[in-house]
């Protein structure tokens, strides 16, 4: 069966190994990686001036013969403008920008000390497919094959067309199953002078390469159009789909110019039991946020200078990897002042790798009704950091023997209730169920008695078998 999904259809998502990065007196605990979301596509766009590099992650799982992609591009690309990237780098970028869970531990209220922080983070992406090698009379259909290349494991064709029906016939003949309604969209792109980038897997090359999975396809071009075509992808989708767009820019956060960009809820205290189900939590919260915005907004999940992070869901992506994702300006001559950074605006911790790259992670759930138009993007000069961050605050459970300790214990139920309310509001989960889980997980809603002081020798030998 041959199908076409155009950019952004289904993708199973990346699996992220739990990291162990240590940051800001805390430990990485968990992240909500892109793999949580089915039917999600991952795209990286690196852009400065008019130079643009798009990397399309390819998590296609299935018979590679069925993989195919059709993607509108603004110009006919030369072979050298097409590349096959590495999944590893995308996985790293995904991990670095993923929403995260952090943990704090209350200090002994009777002996105020320092706080420890721990964290986790969360998120995914999609593709298309087909095979076929028959060559038909493209010219008669008003379709011009501008170029054909084999790059890595992919056979690539760049087409221009005069009419959508000819193009559609050609694609059908080539074995692409064009979804209903595609002709109108194709026609719209044709009139806007867009070319079409088609890629399929070259089985021979793939066998030679030794890779068992498909690698991301990258294209580089110069265009004033800072946009991402999503319309083709909505045609054959079986419902709303997710897109995670990572942008690398030089000056600041990227936002959608024709859709509302809003921040994902962040910096909220939530119950401790979420630690074991952070993925479920994030998915539920994302769905709830989408619902509140009537599926018409684009969510900002991360916006940060690539040079550092705090806390880190993963180490910053090194420069050579950013360059391969298209941050071309890093490859140009030596360090130079960053345009637009302006006066010192914040105290930045020592930067391990002071990359002049600003990363933005946008997440949207869309269909043809709520996102009828392609995404138009604009780079702002906003360098205020933002991350999706959820806080677990462990109460002190050790010994306390003072008036402050008593007050502390009295204050806990109110705090737990607030956490339960937060979680319910964020996810839409029933408050009663949340309270029950909290109760079972050591966050009771009744004031607890002061723990009996233990003799000091028990603290030394108490836990040992004798």
């Amino acid at each position, binding site marked *: 069966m041959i199908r076409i999904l155009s950019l952004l259809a289904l993708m199973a998502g990346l699996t992220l190994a739990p990291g162990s990065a240590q940051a800001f007196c805390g430990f990485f605990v968990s992240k909500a990686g892109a793999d949580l979301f089915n039917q999600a596509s991952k795209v990286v766009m690196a852009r400065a001036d008019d130079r643009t590099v798009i990397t399309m992650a390819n998590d296609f799982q299935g018979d590679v013969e069925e993989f195919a992609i059709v993607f509108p591009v603004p110009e006919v690309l030369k072979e050298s403008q097409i590349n096959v990237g590495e999944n590893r780098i995308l996985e790293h970028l995904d991990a670095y920008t993923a929403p995260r869970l952090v943990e704090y531990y209350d200090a002994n209220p009777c002996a105020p000390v320092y706080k420890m922080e721990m964290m986790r983070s969360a998120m995914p992406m999609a593709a298309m497919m087909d095979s076929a090698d028959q060559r038909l009379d493209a010219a008669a259909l008003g379709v011009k094959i501008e170029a054909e290349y084999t790059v890595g494991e992919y056979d690539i064709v760049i087409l221009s067309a005069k009419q959508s029906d000819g193009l559609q016939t050609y694609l059908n003949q080539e074995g692409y199953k064009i979804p209903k309604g595609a002709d109108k969209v194709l*026609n*719209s792109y044709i009139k806007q002078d867009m070319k079409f980038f088609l890629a399929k897997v070259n089985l021979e090359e793939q066998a030679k390469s030794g890779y068992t999975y498909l690698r991301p396809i990258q294209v580089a071009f110069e265009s004033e159009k800072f946009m991402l075509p999503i319309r083709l992808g909505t045609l054959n989708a079986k419902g709303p789909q997710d897109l995670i767009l990572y942008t690398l820019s030089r000056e600041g956060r990227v936002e*959608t110019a*024709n859709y509302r960009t809003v921040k994902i809820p962040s910096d909220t205290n939530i119950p401790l039991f979420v630690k074991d189900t952070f993925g479920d939590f994030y998915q539920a919260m994302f769905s709830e946020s989408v619902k509140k915005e009537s599926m018409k907004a684009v969510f900002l999940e991360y916006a940060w200078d690539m040079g550092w992070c705090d806390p880190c869901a993963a180490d910053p992506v090194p420069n050579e990897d950013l360059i391969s994702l298209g941050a071309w300006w890093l490859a140009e001559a030596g360090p130079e002042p960053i345009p637009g950074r302006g006066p010192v605006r914040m105290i930045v911790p020592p930067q391990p790798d002071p990359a002049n790259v600003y990363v933005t992670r946008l997440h949207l759930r869309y269909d043809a009704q709520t996102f009828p138009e392609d995404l*138009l993007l*604009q780079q702002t000069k906003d360098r205020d950091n933002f991350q999706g961050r959820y806080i677990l605050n462990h109460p002190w459970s050790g010994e306390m023997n003072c008036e402050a300790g008593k007050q502390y214990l009295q204050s806990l139920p109110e705090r737990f209730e607030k956490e339960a309310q937060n979680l319910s509001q964020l996810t839409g989960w029933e408050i009663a169920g949340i309270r029950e889980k909290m109760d079972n997980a050591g966050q009771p809603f009744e004031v607890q008695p002061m723990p009996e002081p233990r003799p000091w020798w028990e603290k030394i030998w108490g836990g040992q078998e004798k």
Partner: protein
Amino acid sequence: MLTKDPRYAQITILSILTILQMFWADFGPSPVIVALNVSTALAVQYACSRMVGIRFDFRSPLITSLSLTVLLKASALWIYPLAVLVAIGSKFTLRAGGSHIFNPANIGIVAMLLAFPHWVWVAPGQWGSALWLAFLLAAFGCLVLYKVPSRDMTLFFLGGWLALIFGRALWLGDPLAIPLHQIQSGAMLIFAFFMISDPKTIPVRWPGRLIFALAVCVIGFILSIEWHIRESLFYALALVCLARPTLDSIWRAERRPWVTEGGTS
């Protein structure tokens, strides 16, 4: 309203919008920026009024500064008062045919975009359908209630702009949802109701105004569709404002019928 002056209604609408943006929008202006913009505008207006010997009027600078607050974004705080200074200052310095050449808020935005491209950007004005509709109704209500002679400007512009947007969609064969979505820009509404309608910077006679409005539409459309410039309308208006004295010389009037002391937005 207690007055026949539509500027009070404009100030009210813009103030409500500013407050909503300040407290409920994710990337809205901070109270510091609002205070900075408004106070700078009033101070500059006061100083300039004293210098040229006219009565101080708070309405026009208030409208200018609130428009700037909602639209202009900068990565450095000092840019905000500078934009206001350029905006209000231009009213008193860049003049032709008895009034200033540029819409103050518009020239403030354009000047900052050109002078500090690495620090400045314009909020895209995606407020969500409810706020967009509320703003549209309120602004349209003002248009109907206050029979300002220059209100045809807004209608000329909106007519031209809608024709271009819907015409393009028709030509491309796009579904209606696309042009309907494209016009849902808050920035475009502010532009249509509070900028291009500024009575002091548009031609005095209606044929001139029609040409003026259509020129803004066409230039803005080309800049945004062909060149992908997101701030296209602001550039277009600044450019066409330069032609206003010429248009006025073709379609003359004895005097600018609606000009009052102290200036308008």
